């Protein structure tokens, strides 16, 4: 897929900015604080209806702005030309329109315009707790499968309701819990079975990503950790039965602690290089390569699943890379393995020797919002 233009209003540094993109590499460069990352943020909003930087949309809103409005023109192989508008007014629900028609549900936009983001905060994927890895799994699978997305939305809702019920010990009745157990295990089993299948396929993509990037012969592996044994993961029905049994066994613990203790909300992914745990033994460089491998593999996976090349967003990754890795990535972007890319960098010359900025295969786009952010003249 391809993003052709972007009109941003009310996103951080951008009061009103307009951008055009080429199908190849688009280098967004400019001074610090000029709003380069906000451009990627805006793209993320029109594609997934949420931010990749902040937990609350309020923080993405420009200071003093009444609303955020982002318009983009896309071209996908599956649907042709489409215009998307994302609107957020604080205090109201976020809205997405495709070709002028509002989507019934916000989540319906997810997966239409697949994207992969690589940002400085991604180091958390290999270094920090399981939350980050589950988020990675979910963002990826939601884009690839609407059925996964609706199961996830339902699962989270049931989990909240069930925890609420567990939390009020006095009014809690076992027979009421049964209906939540049924819903929890139904949606939860779907998530777990799909995650397990995904990891199998994804491992292959991770290996090919590594082959493209690293000069080493280390073999990356990814292992799925969940509550159930491998045999129980055969299909959703088998897993649901197993899951229900486990819930029944932990019932005393759960009522005591007032939360749901078994389920995909506690899953994790284990990353290894050969037999060594990345989290424990990898060097800084190995961490960085692994994260990049995960993102590239995500790219290949989405491409394969959707038959559409995702849009690749690289936020500030070049400024911290050593020359060797830098060259590898530049070659990758210039080659056929990936399609359209939006890259931010403080320097305008990061690709100087690799890509010709002829406005066709690659485009150099200065980002400067200083005129939009000039202080009000004193009167």
């Amino acid at each position, binding site marked *: 897929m391809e993003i052709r233009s972007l009109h941003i209003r009310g996103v951080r540094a951008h009061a009103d900015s307009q951008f055009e993109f080429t199908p190849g590499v688009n280098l967004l460069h400019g001074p610090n604080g000029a709003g380069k990352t906000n451009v990627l943020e805006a793209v993320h909003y029109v594609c997934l209806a949420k931010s990749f930087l902040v937990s609350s949309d309020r923080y993405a809103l420009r200071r003093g702005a009444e609303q955020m409005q982002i318009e983009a023109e896309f071209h996908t192989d599956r649907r042709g030309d489409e215009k998307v508008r994302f609107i957020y007014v604080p205090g109201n629900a976020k809205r997405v329109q495709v070709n002028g028609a509002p989507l*019934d*549900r916000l989540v*319906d936009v997810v*997966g239409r315009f697949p994207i992969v983001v690589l940002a400085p905060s991604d180091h958390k994927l290999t270094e920090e707790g399981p939350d980050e890895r589950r988020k990675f799994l979910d963002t990826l699978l939601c884009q690839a499968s*609407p*059925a996964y*997305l*609706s199961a996830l939305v*339902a699962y989270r*809702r*049931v989990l*909240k*309701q*069930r925890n*609420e*019920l567990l939390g*009020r010990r006095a*009014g809690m009745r076992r*027979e*009421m819990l*049964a*209906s*939540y157990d*049924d*819903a929890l295990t139904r949606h939860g089993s779907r998530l777990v079975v799909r995650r397990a299948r995904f990891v199998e396929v994804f491992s292959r993509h991770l290996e090919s990503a590594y082959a493209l990037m690293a000069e080493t012969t280390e073999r990356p592996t990814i292992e799925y950790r969940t509550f159930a044994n491998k045999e129980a993961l055969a299909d959703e029905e088998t897993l649901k039965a197993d899951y229900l049994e486990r819930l029944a066994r932990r019932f005393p613990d759960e009522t005591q602690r007032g939360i749901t203790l078994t389920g995909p909300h506690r899953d994790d992914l284990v990353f290894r290089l050969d037999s060594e745990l990345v989290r424990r033994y990898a060097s800084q460089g190995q961490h960085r390569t692994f994260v990049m491998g995960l993102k590239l593999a995500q790219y290949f996976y989405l491409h394969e699943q959707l038959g559409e090349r995702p849009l690749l967003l690289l936020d500030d990754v070049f400024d911290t890379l050593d020359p060797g890795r830098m060259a590898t990535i530049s070659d990758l972007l210039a080659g056929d393995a990936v399609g359209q890319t939006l890259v931010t960098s403080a320097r305008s010359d990061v690709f100087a020797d690799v890509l010709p900025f002829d406005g066709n295969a690659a485009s150099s786009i200065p980002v400067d919002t200083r005129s939009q952010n000039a202080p009000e003249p004193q009167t």
Partner: protein
Amino acid sequence: MQFTSESVEALVEQFAKLPTIGRKTARRLTAYILKMSREEVVGIAEALVAVKDNVTTCTVCYNVTDHVPCPICRAPRRDRSVLCVVEEPNDVLAIERTNEFDGLYHVLGGVISPLDGVGPEDLRVRELVQRVHDGHRDPLEEAEDAPAVAIREVILAMNPNVEGDTTSYYLGQLLEPFGVRVSRIARGLPIGGDLEFADEATLTRALEGRANL
């Protein structure tokens, strides 16, 4: 800012209390009311007061009605052995518009949702169980020992979301001991819709709930 008419402002305030009505719309409605004839406005005012004075809840199905029991519960030709359980009175209207259902209704008054503090005791759940247990007695029949019509089937018509799901499951379990058939309305594609334009979640549900030819 100075108001020229306190009456106008008061009406705007009142309209703005209604759901989906913002201040702008409230002003527009007020301006329209000003232009209407006095008779028309009195008609609106009387209709508003009448719903509060006359409308009550049917003691059989808990739908809103002017007369207890409601016309549906009284209708002689409806099938008294089938109950359709819905969340709100508006859902009864929706099903009635199909002209396809000729059983009776039971309005729950909402769905179970611990997050909103709504449990079975806040809904007409006990009343439903009682109805299924007792069978349907003609509400106009004076004689105490008049025979009751046994309930054969309960159709659960909750909204297709998590709360509708869990409430249905809960009711299904409660009604199991009575040996009545308990069913749920199907979910899937809208009629007249185009497969290509159906959202994926609905399409997935429709695939899961596929029926044999």
